[in-house]
């Protein structure tokens, strides 16, 4: 029976249907292809080239071009204390900035969630630091705000006993982190505020009727409701903040010494000051591997946070 079926020519309808299905599948794929191919070419090829250069010795200020050196670039990366330092600093800067910005963001969102006089203006003022060009913000903080001799901050803090502090020499890392927090708190505020405003009013009303205090309501009802919003803010904030470059380059230039050198700035220096393409490539590969490890967790978090509406 089966044999006969196998030998018999397949029914014409099925062939047509399969062809139609294949046609349909390609029609569905077609609109996706330009973006997919574009993204693969522009974002993946540089990384493949990076992998290749990471095994080459190539200084572009020297004649002779690239030649194979095996693992020596990687050996240099792992024995280089500046690399390890900048890796640790990247983690510290990102984590501190994201966490503090999120705490402030929650506080500001709670503040903005209530009706008061001029709420729209207050929200507008608070989001502005996020919109100011980061390079402009970094330069304005570097001198007009933080200069030891005539910076505004020292003037504003003078009543608290602050006397001409040279912030960028004595508290460089802290200053850079403060600017990162200043820029990213509005982002967190907006995301948490959206969460607060999506909270159903009747549950809050019910809690009030049941005699729950404001703090208990916040802890027991609001915070759990905010959780996906907070996770989303932390996730996206980390993706952007781990790449912070403008503030480091323009406020401290990685210094004093290497005290504010994070990974992006270190890579920038390797290419621009040391002309070490091979070394920078190896550092890049190590960075990418570390990123992939972190991103695997992050992507899982993404899938959870974005509650996927099923596609039609």
């Amino acid at each position, binding site marked *: 029976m089966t044999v006969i079926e196998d030998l018999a020519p397949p029914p014409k309808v099925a062939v047509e249907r399969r062809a139609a299905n294949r046609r349909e599948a390609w029609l569905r794929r077609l609109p996706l292809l330009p973006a997919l191919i574009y993204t693969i070419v522009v974002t993946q090829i540089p990384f493949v080239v990076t992998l290749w250069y990471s095994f080459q010795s190539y200084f572009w200020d020297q004649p002779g071009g690239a030649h194979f050196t095996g693992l020596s670039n990687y050996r240099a990366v792992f024995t280089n204390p500046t690399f390890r330092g900048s890796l640790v600093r990247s983690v510290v800067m990102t984590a501190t900035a994201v966490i503090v910005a999120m705490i402030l963001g929650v506080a500001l969102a709670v503040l903005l969630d209530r009706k008061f006089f001029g709420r729209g203006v207050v929200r507008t003022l608070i989001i502005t630091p996020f919109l100011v*060009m980061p390079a402009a913000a970094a330069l304005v903080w570097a001198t007009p705000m933080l200069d030891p001799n005539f910076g505004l901050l020292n003037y504003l803090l003078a009543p608290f006993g602050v006397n001409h502090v040279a912030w960028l020499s004595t508290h460089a890392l802290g200053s850079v982190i403060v600017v990162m927090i200043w820029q990213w708190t509005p982002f967190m505020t907006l995301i948490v505020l959206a969460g607060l405003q999506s909270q159903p009013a009747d549950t809050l009303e019910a809690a009030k009727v049941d005699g729950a205090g404001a703090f208990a309501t916040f802890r027991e009802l609001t915070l759990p409701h905010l959780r996906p919003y907070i996770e989303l803010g932390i996730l996206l904030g980390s993706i952007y903040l781990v790449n912070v470059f403008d503030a480091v380059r323009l406020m401290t230039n990685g210094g004093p010494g290497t005290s504010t050198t994070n990974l992006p700035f270190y890579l920038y220096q390797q290419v621009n000051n040391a002309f070490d393409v091979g070394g920078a490539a190896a550092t890049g590969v190590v960075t990418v591997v570390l990123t992939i490890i972190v991103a695997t967790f992050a992507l899982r978090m993404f899938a959870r946070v974005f509650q996927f509406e099923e596609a039609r």
Partner: protein
Amino acid sequence: MTATTARRRSRGLRQWSGQAGWTVLAWAVAIVFFIPVLWMVLTAFKPESAAETWPPKFIFTPTLSEFRLAVTGMGPFLTHSIIATLGSTILVLLLAVPAAYALSVRPVKHWRDGLFFFISTKMLPIVAAIGPLYVIALHAHLLDSILLMIILYTAMNLPLAIWMIRSFMLEVPGELLEAARLDGAGRIREMGSVIMPIISPGLVSTALICVIFAWNELFLAINLTVTNAATLPMFLISSVPQEGLFIAHLCAAATIASIPVVIVGWIAQRSLVRGLSMGAIK
């Protein structure tokens, strides 16, 4: 009777003072956050000699001379920024709309994997590939060209735009699509007459987000451009000289460079949230 009135009145008073306290606190916080921006704008109106003083001057005769100076210097940088920003934003939309369609309305089989592939490229730090990127650009004769900036900014914003536009497309009512299909509308007509009109406000906010990120970008510009394609953030850096007074000049340049995006962001506050969350928050 009088006791209840008094109690009611005192509760009213407490409520009123609570409301007043809330208002004052919120305004105080807003002002603290806004001070650096305010200081930037204020300093931009100072003559250079009044900008670097101790104590800082709050009252002075405002002048536009630093603005004038900044404007005359920034011409080419401004042009490059505008071309790179608009060019990349248009290209992003052209690529993202069909892709979002293929990931939502008539999804490909592995649409989930597609979405995650796009977002994963956002997590790969572009800084890691900067050296090789320079070499590639050099060999492709694209170094210091606006075309290169357009290509890279497009890749930078594309994942964001796809996620965002997809979230708008998912909001198109299924019945409308169904009705159009029953009318015999093909994909093109379905796109043109049903989907596009509904998502066009969404496309505007997507474009705004792309404009913000492209306009503000510095890392790629500083590494891959010199003069022919240097953008506004590069102009800001060049406005800080090695010596001499520069603060008022810097603030004027920084103010001009920031204003377009600040105003766009102020106007588009609502869509800002959706864009920054890549469509996750409605």
